[in-house]
């Protein structure tokens, strides 16, 4: 798992704001190309890989989205400052005082704000309106700024991964490079069934890539790998915590986009129990995942989600427990291995058969 963790760190150090996932995709291709039978990049930028199975079985899709939330330059002021809007869900409150990098050439910038000394009393106590913030790249004026940056350029947080504390990893974009890293490991093994490993795009802007990817594949079953919300910090009531870091992979039963397939989830629970892998359920039903889009594909797909709890998700300093990452991989792998011999699950009366 050392290699997997290193991969994860490298992945989080790359930038892949929704719509501009290329750096992440290229890196993934460089690793997986020797492990898969075939791969291609589709119209939207999804990386679709294929591993032929040893025998018959359902067609299985494993999805991990490559993109991360970030900012986009929307205007350059005459003073050379960059106005921006968020791409995906970022809270204005976390942006002030952050280091960022812009565009393909990674131009460094900072998000400044009026010092506390100069703020009115009322301003001090209120949240910052994103519209008031600008990125400063040190330029004197618009002309100089335009030499380096253009409207439409994507902006990523500029933070390196750090291992710290008791087996914790801090990094930007753990949502969802952690899923990508697990999927990369899964592709190193072979299975009974045909496996389509999909590294999808544009999840953070409305679950876009998974929709077109699943249409191309038409899977019977899909497993979605994710980084999910976690708020196990003081002063939070237990039922509001969403998930607990270090308590194991998270199984989603329901969120705003999906009710996962009960039989499939029960199957994963059995696998976890038999292999003594810890697991937990998500305690809130907020948020959404690609599972919703994939389930609704064509005539329908049975879906399940395995996620790694990530504190401070959608900020530059998200934190995960390394054991959750490792256990997510173990659970996913054991689950996929069990699929080949548990076809009976899909042989309900009147249901589809895969023998």
């Amino acid at each position, binding site marked *: 798992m050392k290699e997997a963790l290193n991969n994860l760190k490298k992945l989080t150090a790359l930038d892949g704001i*929704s719509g501009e996932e290329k750096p992440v995709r290229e890196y993934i291709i460089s690793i997986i190309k020797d492990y898969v039978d075939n791969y291609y990049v589709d119209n939207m930028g999804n990386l679709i890989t294929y591993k032929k199975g040893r025998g018959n079985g359902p067609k299985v899709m494993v999805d991990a989205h490559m993109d991360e939330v970030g900012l986009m330059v929307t205007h350059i002021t005459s003073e050379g400052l960059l*106005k921006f809007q968020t791409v995906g869900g970022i809270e204005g409150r976390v942006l002030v005082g952050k280091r960022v990098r812009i565009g393909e050439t990674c131009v460094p910038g900072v998000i400044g704000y009026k010092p506390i000394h100069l703020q009115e009393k009322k301003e001090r106590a209120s949240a910052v309106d994103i519209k008031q913030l600008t990125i400063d790249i040190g330029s004197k004026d618009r002309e100089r700024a335009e030499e380096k940056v253009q*409207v*439409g350029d994507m902006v990523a947080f500029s933070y390196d991964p750090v291992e710290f504390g008791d087996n914790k990893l801090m990094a930007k974009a753990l949502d969802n490079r952690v899923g990508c890293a697990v999927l990369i490991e899964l592709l190193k093994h072979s299975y009974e069934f045909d496996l389509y490993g999909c590294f999808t795009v544009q999840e953070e802007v409305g679950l876009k890539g998974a929709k077109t990817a699943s249409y191309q594949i038409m899977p019977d079953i899909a497993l979605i790998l994710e980084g999910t919300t976690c708020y196990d910090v003081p002063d939070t009531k237990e039922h509001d915590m969403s998930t607990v870091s270090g308590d194991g992979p998270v199984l989603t039963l329901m969120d705003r986009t999906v009710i996962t397939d009960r039989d499939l989830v029960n199957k994963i629970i059995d696998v976890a129990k038999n292999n003594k892998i810890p697991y937990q359920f998500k305690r809130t039903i907020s948020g959404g995942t690609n599972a919703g889009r994939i389930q609704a594909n064509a005539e329908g797909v049975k879906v399940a989600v395995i996620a790694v709890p990530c504190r401070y998700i959608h900020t530059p300093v998200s934190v995960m427990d390394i054991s959750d990452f490792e256990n997510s991989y173990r659970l996913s792998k054991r689950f996929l291995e069990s699929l080949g011999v548990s076809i009976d699950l899909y042989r309900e009366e009147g249901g589809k058969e895969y023998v």
Partner: protein
Amino acid sequence: MMHCGELIIKLSDLRAVSGRENEASDAIAEVFREYCDEVYIDGFYNVVGLKKGQASEPKNILITAHYDEIGLIVTDIEESGFLRFAPVGGVDVKTIGAMEVTVHGKHDLFGVIGAKAPHLIDPADKDKAVKFEDMRIDIGLSGEKAKELVTIGDMVSFNSPAQKMMNNRIAGKSLDNRCGVAAIVETLKELKKLNHDDNVYVVATVQEELGLIGAICASYRIDADLAIVIDVCHGDMPGTPADSSFPLGKGTAIGIGPILNREHVKAMIKLAKDEHIPYQIDPETGDTGTEAAAHAVAKEGIPVILLSIPSKYMHTPVEMISVDDVIATGRLAARYIAGREK
């Protein structure tokens, strides 16, 4: 061949509230027919035109612009003859008090949406917006007569004939998005002068204002290799932010953002620069609120370009656009299609 400005006025004055586009589809088909090899109206009243390409194995390019407009729908006919109504699409309730309307009943009926005289308004209510459910359409008929001519579900459109303004601008009720349809016609006109390899499918779509319905159907049925969406964006007005409103007369706004295809967008910008076609950049960090969101995820996914025509006062009966921008949009789209690598 109609001049672009005249065509925009003609199109803006058609009545096609979302869900009742069938009354206008023939008129649009007739306009397309002048420039296309084939024209048909599909089962949802999308108007589809095909201008064939010259390649032996042409690719398909899809251009869509919706032709539905926001409006109202009759929800009840009261004993007194007044009509209750609900909005169809994003109608701003502030804009419809004291408005002339046409109720599309058994035949078209003139009506007005009344408003309380200022003398009669309770001072406590003066700052509140009126609610749809508190307003009525007055068609000046008795309950009996009204029920004979009007049925629940009849659509209502606004009376606001398009007119020419200074600076080659036009104001009207449904320039969102009839000016987009006019830009499609400009594209076709321009393409007539150029050689193009690819098949060009132009579609004036329905029910965009209700959730991109026509576009979802069109890009599922037409297998396209590239889609171009033409719609309106916000024109700049006092108090609007610089990154989401655009001056009139400065050219089409080329969308850039996550769901729009980067390579095509870059190529489009380069073309505009090289050919000296005026353009602006429209940063779209989300779903764009246009048919681009439908095409991008249609089937296997279609690369999408979004071209927007700045329009002031969107979703009011006096939307305003510049004819120059419509022409620039058509030129840019046509040059892009004709200049695609073989």
